[in-house]
């Protein structure tokens, strides 16, 4: 299963945790047997991906971060997008600094205090 497919299935389950396969089929108009297959590892078609995305988008309110991000992507100048992208990457990097990691010996010379 591709990363993109994994990601949208995970998102769907986040926003609709109690949906049965039949519910998913009803919301997306994807055949029930196809829903079963793609949620169990079969490769998703682009149109199926889009149908899942539409259902998720409708769930998300206009103020939600992802909606605003998509709107930014379609509306903002390249200069503003470059800056937003760089800022988001920085925040991600800075947020990782608090997570303990284990480095191999070669990366930790002079470790002992």
């Amino acid at each position: 299963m591709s990363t993109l497919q994994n990601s949208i299935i995970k998102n769907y389950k986040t926003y609709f945790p109690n949906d049965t396969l039949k519910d998913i089929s009803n919301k997306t108009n994807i055949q029930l047997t196809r829903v079963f297959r793609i949620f169990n590892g079969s490769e998703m078609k682009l149109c199926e991906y889009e149908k899942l995305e539409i259902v998720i988008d409708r769930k998300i309110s206009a103020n939600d971060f992802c909606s605003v991000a998509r709107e930014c992507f379609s509306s903002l100048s390249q200069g503003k997008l470059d800056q937003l992208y760089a800022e988001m990457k920085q925040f991600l990097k800075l947020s990782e600094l608090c997570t303990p990691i284990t480095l191999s010996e070669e990366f930790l010379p002079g470790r002992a205090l």
Partner: protein
Amino acid sequence: MNFNITVAERMVLESLAKKSKNTFELVNCTSLDRIALQHILSSLISKNLVLTLDSKYKINKKLNQAILDELHDEVNAQVEFKEIAAACFRTRLEEGSLLKLKKVFMTKEEERIFNALLINLELFIDGLTSKQDHLTKQQIVFWGGGKYGEITHNTINF
């Protein structure tokens, strides 16, 4: 490859630019905690900006022009500057911190005086030397300004 150097990574690079250091010396110089430092060093080593030698870390001085250009990338510099300014804003009420912004009218004469004061300030700052190796004790200072209209125009149209 875009390095997206963070303020913290740049601090470590500046520390190593003076001389190579081990972990303890880096913690002492930057006052970064060990976990953050581990992440930063891992990131800088993976980008080949920092090398390890004889139980110490050192700057890789053999960087090609493409990498040097990335390190001085304007968008990234802008993001770093914004992060520093934002951090100064967040800490502005703390002891030892200072951040002021004013909008004023100046006559031509007043503008000449202001520019002369700025030149004096710059000469003073340029005359200061990095006597200490403790980066954590350095003061970050920034100054500048512009016409309100031009700045507002730029925020809309860039």
